[in-house]
């Protein structure tokens, strides 16, 4: 006798089963028991207790957030600074047409310096301070090994590493 496969049982559970499977399940005790087992497993999975993160990750998220904000401010400051500088030089050039070639060379030089500065600022990655889960997992045991016996719930070096 042919029985329901696990896919058939899944389809029955989802209400998408074939006509054959729907008919078969009404007469086959073995498949009824299998379907009941599936329902029970799903109910047990749903009832599993919530797993909680072993470490507080907010300091790392906050640190990355602050780094991102300060980077945005610096980039904006660099841009406005460059624009102001360019405007000043342009004004000088307009007022002194006789010294155009010298001023042009200076302008090119200043533009290059400004571009280098912006590039350096953008490459500066403060996110590097944020610990990964793997690094945190390595830090935590070594901290607990160094922990003083009378302070079992406090690990200062772990906190400062995450902060």
């Amino acid at each position, binding site marked *: 006798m042919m029985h329901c496969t*696990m896919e058939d049982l899944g389809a029955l559970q989802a209400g998408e089963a074939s006509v054959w499977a729907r008919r078969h399940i009404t007469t086959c005790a073995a498949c009824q028991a299998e379907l009941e087992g599936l329902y029970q497993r799903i109910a047990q999975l749903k009832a599993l207790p919530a*797993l909680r*993160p*072993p470490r507080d990750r*907010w300091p*790392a998220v906050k640190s990355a957030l602050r780094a991102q904000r300060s980077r945005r401010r610096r980039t904006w400051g660099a841009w406005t600074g460059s624009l102001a500088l360019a405007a000043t030089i342009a004004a000088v050039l307009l007022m002194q047409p006789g010294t155009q070639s010298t001023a042009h060379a200076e302008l090119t030089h200043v533009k290059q310096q400004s571009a280098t500065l912006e590039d350096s600022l953008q490459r500066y990655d403060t996110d590097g301070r944020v610990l990964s889960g793997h690094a945190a997992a390595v830090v935590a045991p070594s901290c607990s090994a160094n922990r003083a016996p009378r302070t079992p719930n406090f690990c200062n070096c772990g906190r400062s590493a995450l902060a």
Partner: protein
Amino acid sequence: MTVSLAVPDVLVARAQAGDEAALEALFRAFETPVYNLVRRMLRRPEDAEDVLQETFLEVVRNIKQYRGEGHLWGWIRRIASTKALMRIRRDQVRQTESLDEEPGKPGMHIGANLDLERAFERLSETSRAVVWLHDVEGYTHEEIAEQMGKSVSFSKSQLARAHARLRRMLDEGAHA
């Protein structure tokens, strides 16, 4: 785990305005559901911690894009599950098939006390992800397939195979 987290609109609005205290409150409200979700999907706790952090970095960056359509948990859950699935795809090389098929590996003996949670942990990460997203989080096969970049039939067959393995492991555990 069923989550019914209600977050006040005013808290979301403050978070969208960049209020750090409100962002922390959102983190505190959702850190456990997010960690639980990704920890169930991923085998290694360190990976789950990383995904928890990545999820909230994205939440903080994109909270302004949340328009209040649907529950906030649904929006955050989508970010978290996508990131966990991306990690599974990225680490697919190291991923093994069900560990119960690796005889002789230390700690893999299926004992009489094998319960569903331990059996579930022995599934491959892809199987765990499909089972958890479908059976516990209530995702449809279409949604899972879209998130995984696979077909609907892939999701269905992964689910069926995973349940067949769970059933077998629990059966063997009961008769050991």
